[in-house]
């Protein structure tokens, strides 16, 4: 039997105050990110903020500063330029509310082609989003997430106890906020794809919490003599090897996406990677200690 961890006997619950402090900080960054997003100060993707983005590929390399000058000359001084990792591609983003009738995308590619006449330019993708759409997408995402969380809380409350449901929901929110906060601090662009990754990691994190809670519930029934802290510690130690092995598998899979998944999946997999680590941490250090804070009817 190959084992990463043998029998462990770690006192996780005694570390809960350190964990709460750390989690508080993480959540704070997440809340800050949310506030900044709603104020429109965060690095929001075009899909949410509205505006125009286009990705162009040149036959020969171009200087970023030349391209910037060309755009500034054509009235796009506020365009953000970014070089793509793969061959001579350039990402141009104009986040101000451009009405689509302006044909900003068309103008930008014309300006660039004018500046680099001998250099064949292909427009690989364009995205023009009107102001109402972004708002709509945001509302949709928030509504869906809220209802999903409530639904899960009800299910877990029915299957376990009410406090388990609340603890799982809080821990899941914690994970999503923490990842959002970190992405915000890294100044990553919050796009629809990143939101999808937050949903994905919420799903993963929830599964993880359910597994730990399941063991706690089982042990609460069988080990009535011990204190709740002891039961939780024992349960976490029991599922620890599973938790570590599963997280390792997820990290393997998501790292592959991060390294080889291409530009589009890059931020997505970064968010997932963070989510796996934080989700595993919070199952042990956030969700479980919450059960101690809120003692249910099973044991006083």
């Amino acid at each position, binding site marked *: *039997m*190959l084992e*990463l961890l043998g029998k462990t006997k770690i006192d996780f619950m005694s570390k809960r105050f350190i964990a709460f402090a750390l989690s508080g900080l993480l959540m704070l960054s997440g809340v800050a990110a949310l506030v900044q997003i709603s104020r429109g100060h965060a690095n929001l993707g075009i899909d949410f903020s509205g505006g125009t983005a286009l990705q162009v*590929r040149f036959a020969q390399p171009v200087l970023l500063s030349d391209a910037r000058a060309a755009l500034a000359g054509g009235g796009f001084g506020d365009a953000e330029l970014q070089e793509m990792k*793969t061959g001579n591609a350039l990402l141009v983003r104009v986040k101000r509310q451009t009405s*689509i009738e302006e044909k900003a*995308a*068309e103008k930008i590619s014309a300006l660039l082609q004018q500046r680099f006449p001998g250099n064949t330019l292909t*427009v*690989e*993708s*364009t*995205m*023009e*989003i*009107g102001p*109402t*759409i972004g708002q709509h*997408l945001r509302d*949709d995402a928030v*509504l*869906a997430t809220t*209802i*999903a969380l409530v*639904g*899960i809380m009800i*299910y*877990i409350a029915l*299957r376990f106890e009410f406090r388990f449901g609340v603890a799982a929901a809080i821990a899941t929110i914690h994970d999503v906020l923490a990842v959002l906060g970190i992405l915000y601090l890294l100044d990553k662009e919050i796009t*629809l*794809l990143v939101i*999808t*990754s937050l*949903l994905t990691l*919420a*799903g*993963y994190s*929830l*599964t993880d919490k*359910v*597994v730990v809670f*399941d063991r706690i519930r*089982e042990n609460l029934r069988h080990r009535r003599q011990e204190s709740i802290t002891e039961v939780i510690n024992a349960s976490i130690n*029991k599922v620890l090897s599973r938790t570590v092995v*599963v997280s390792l*598998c*997820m990290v393997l*899979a*998501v*790292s*592959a*996406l991060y390294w*080889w*998944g*291409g*530009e*589009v*999946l890059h931020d*997505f997999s970064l968010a*997932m990677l963070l989510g796996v680590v934080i989700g595993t941490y919070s199952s042990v250090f956030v969700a479980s200690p919450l059960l101690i804070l809120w003692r249910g009817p099973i044991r006083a």
Partner: protein
Amino acid sequence: MKRRIGIRLALIAATILVSLVLFLPSTPLYSSMPDWWKRYLPSQGVTLGLDLQGGMHVVLRVESDKAVEGIVDRALATLPPALIDRKLAGVTPKRIGPLELELDFTGQETEEATGTLRDGLIKLMEDSYPTLYNTDRTIPKEKGQPGRLVFRVRESDAARIKESAVSQALETIRNRVDQFGVAEPLIQRQETDQILVQLPGIKDPQRALDLIGRTAQLEFTLLDEESPVWSKLPAFVPVGQEETIVKEISPQLAADDELLFERETVKDTGDVRKRPYIVKRIPALTGDLLTDARVSIGQFNEAYVSITFNSAGAQLFKKVTTDNVKKRLAIVLDNTVYSAPVIQEPINNGRAQISGSFTTQQANDLAVVLRAGALPAPVTIIQNVTVGPTLGRDSIEAGIKAALVGAGLVLLFMLVYYRLSGLIADVALLFNVVLLVGALAMFGATLTLPGLAGIILTIGMAVDSNILIFERIREELRQQRPVRLAIDAGYEKAFVTIIDSHVTTLITALVLFMLGTGPIKGFAVTLSLGVTINLFTSIVGTRVVFDWISGRRKLDTLSI
């Protein structure tokens, strides 16, 4: 016991077979399958989303308010002749709001005359313009009160017109796309006034956008050659200055005149400039009366569009050209003058030409939109996402490569860590993916980039289920339980956890599916299918293999 294993094995074998058949069309292998296979078995692979195969995703909003405002426009256009018909003199119709028009008949000599005129007007409006109702806002019979009537578009009619404007726009856009020739376009209505157009694999997105977004309101309008304002007009206006000129000139124009421009390219320099025209506000003839529009090539090898009117249009055209010989008739498309030829002689055959400096392709597209008909109201593009075919291909290649590497690492890890049991789990995992892709193909779901994310989460959960079970079995084995019992206990205890974790995920997925839009929906579809399939493979699938192994002979050890 043995018989039950047999049944379960058969069930699983059947599932594998069916899912393989559904899965194969999504793989490159499919092209080399024998003909009989292609003929009798499903050929529909997973549809790739626009982000993966390239294409265009456009959301248009129909300005249906404009269609309602059009009622007032049409009433204003047709009222003057109707007033003459009924001998109602001294009445000035004018617009006083988007949905309101006013009939001003002040200045009658006697109160009695005002009253008669008022009754005549109300009768005329009731007979000819049923969508407009008398608001009774002024009481003209009172002494000193001006003679005015205000008519407004009825609310119920406005709602109906808006509704039909959207459905008509949908139909028109569908016609245009059909004529443009795109494989598997998706054109559907969403919300109340939006139209979603998806054109996969499109090569020239700007052209497609012009084609579907253009109103294509064709009008034949007489120039007001007698207007004194002509002398104040410059011969040409530089591009971008049109607005200023319109602002400056418009107040001086007669009420029934307006200023429009023609785009001109200077042959030698290639510069573009605009030539202003004073035209009648009310068109003599509109494009809804035509039956056909074709591209033709003129004697100087220039492309033009020749149009044919229907019989009503032809008669009207004949009348207009007969009455206005030697005058100039502007051909106006979406408020831009294309040409303004002098009418040399009456035209009886109901044919006309639209020339301008077209390329053959532009002329061709114009013919398409004219044939498909004008949009009942202008549309604005509120979302346009276009992914070039190369970028889509790059994304999917990178995504697949990464997924293969990731899955390979996980499979290898399971094999090393759990040995024979790991192998069983690996086979189940592969089977899981095959089932999932097969199911996506069967339900006609679209695989998008977020959908790929859903698949990755599913794989993660599948691994999780197996690890849960294996760790439980190991725990039992550590307590010196016999293999047979350890397997049973392991599955039994893990079962509850697996159900709970899958149901919670399924709740999330279903809510996202019902409420999410676009990419989030794509994610939810793969996730819900994946979770359901997972539940099957992890609880029934691997179990039967373990039962089969341990049932054949008494095992002392288990490779786990």
